[in-house]
């Protein structure tokens, strides 16, 4: 029996695009109930790593275990069972443009449960409220939503089946600071209430300080470090120093230290 508290475990992961090595021997464990942030400069393979965890891409070598089950070479039925247990928020929301918000959120429920339509609509409505949208938003189409509303609607869809794990791809990109802050709060609140494990790719330094329990820094095809922001900000590892040494990073850091 695998360790109940390790949700994701990655061993010796290797990804190669043509001749470019994206990941070379990455080991990473995510435990239940934590918020792990993946960071790294452009082209360091954050999104690829996320894609491999959610079974959209296959790594060239190495093992990824979700809930103790190998995802590389998993059967169709196994993959379907695993997919039910996590939700994904895509960077652009990826709401289906031909469906209303309510239909978008209800879609996973329709696909994976045998609930009747009235109950699916009611549950979808609850999720929409949970994600901080107004009830009127339920009947809007994605092209009638603002950027912040799209993210929230997409979060509601990701949460539709009450997943154990939530994958967020740049959840606060393109949002104004106020919306980004309240989105972070929402994620924290949901995590506390529903006991979620959250894995997010982000560049938002505020999110890193306020939401993430641990931050994994990718660079040079390796994992340069996995630790809390406080510990990482004191690190002397060149890739980590490089990533967190810009003027913006320093400002955020000072503010966060003062707050503590």
């Amino acid at each position: 029996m695998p360790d109940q508290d390790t949700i994701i475990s990655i061993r010796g992961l290797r990804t190669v695009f043509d001749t470019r090595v994206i990941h070379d021997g990455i080991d990473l464990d995510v435990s239940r109930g934590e918020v792990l942030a993946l960071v790294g400069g452009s082209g360091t393979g954050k999104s690829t790593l996320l894609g491999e965890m959610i079974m959209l891409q296959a790594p060239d070598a190495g093992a990824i275990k979700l809930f103790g089950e190998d995802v590389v070479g998993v059967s169709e039925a196994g993959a379907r069972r695993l997919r039910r247990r996590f939700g994904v928020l895509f960077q652009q929301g990826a709401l289906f443009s031909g469906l209303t918000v309510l239909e978008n959120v209800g879609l996973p429920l329709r696909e994976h449960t045998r609930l009747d339509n009235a109950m699916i609509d009611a549950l979808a409505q609850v999720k929409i409220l949970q994600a901080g949208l107004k009830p009127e938003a339920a009947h809007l189409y994605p092209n009638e939503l603002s950027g912040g509303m799209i993210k929230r609607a997409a979060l509601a869809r990701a949460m539709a089946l009450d997943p154990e794990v939530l994958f967020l791809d740049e959840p606060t990109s393109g949002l104004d600071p106020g919306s980004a802050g309240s989105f972070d709060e929402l994620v924290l609140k949901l995590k506390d209430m529903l006991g979620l494990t959250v894995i997010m790719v982000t560049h938002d330094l505020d999110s890193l300080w306020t939401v993430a329990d641990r931050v994994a820094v990718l660079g040079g095809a390796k994992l340069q470090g996995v630790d809390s922001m406080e510990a990482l900000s004191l690190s002397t590892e060149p890739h980590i120093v490089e990533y967190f040494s810009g003027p913006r990073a320093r400002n955020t850091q000072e503010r966060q230290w003062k707050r503590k």
Partner: protein
Amino acid sequence: MKNKRGEDAGLSVAADTLICSNLWTVSGVGALRILLDNQPLPTCDTVAINGKAITAMDTAGAWLMLQLRERLEVAGSQVVLEGFQPEHHRLIQYIAEQCQGAATVAPRRAAGSVAAWWINVGHDLISFLAFIGEVIVSLLLAVRSPARIRWREILADIYQSGVKALPIVGLLSFLMGVVIAYQGSIQLKLYGANIYIADLVGHSMLRELAPLLTAILVCGRTGSAYAAQIGTMKVREEVAALETIGMSPVDVLVLPKLVSLIIALPLLSVFADVAAIFGGMVMANSELGVSFSAFFYRLEEAISYSTFMIGISKAPVFAAIIAIIGCYQGFKVEGSAESVGQHTTISVVQSIFLVIVVDALFSILFVLLGV
């Protein structure tokens, strides 16, 4: 994950207590909901809901619990939740907060009256005419200052919509020639009028069928591509970007397509004529024993120059119809991927329809002119 029967959410009634058990989760509550609607509930002053035996609860379970509580309260009972795990209790509280004061909003109804439909058609017609006007204005402006014409794009478009269409247009016209000649040969043989196969194939193909067939193929091949391309650009706000840069979308997107198709379609029609005649010749040779040279000799006598020109002269008009409808439908796309599909379909249907209608009008016109 399907649950075994025993793991579905359970509910049993004991005097004034409702005992809940097992999985109150999204996969477990489906059956319970049906049960709940039919189950007689206790109607005492105080009803206790005992959640001690609940092994797992998620949003769906908590929501259903709230529904249950509400139903009991409406029936006039005081409801007490007891024995719940602290985290289940917290979740129920949280969902209750979320749902407070949020009555479900009814979906908007699209106006569906016949009048509204006709008004819509009217608007559509007006905006289509406005679009044609816009295209003509920018075409005239381009003629006045030829430096504005995008030759590079026109050439690229001619390659895309013309050169690349040669194989399919050639093949289909050839087959069309074969079919017409074969059908004709059966009739002509009866009268021993074998040589008139050249008249039959020449007239029907050059005057009507080859240009029409080519136009219909190009509707499906190029008109739809125009609609999809402009539609996708509209969805991705590329059209808006062009406008903010100060480039007219009609100049950049429509004119090159229109001009290139007006050049390409007549050329394609000529090619279709050649392929169709060749198909007829092959068939005449094998079925009727009319040699290639005899066929050519007869063709020259039977077909006047005007027959050929009548066929080709229709092609630029067809081209304008296809390009303008394709582009217009592209600009009508609003927001969603579904809309791109819809308007692409509409562009093909409308342009094929109009091409055939205009072809019929041409026939009448030519009869009146006596050519």
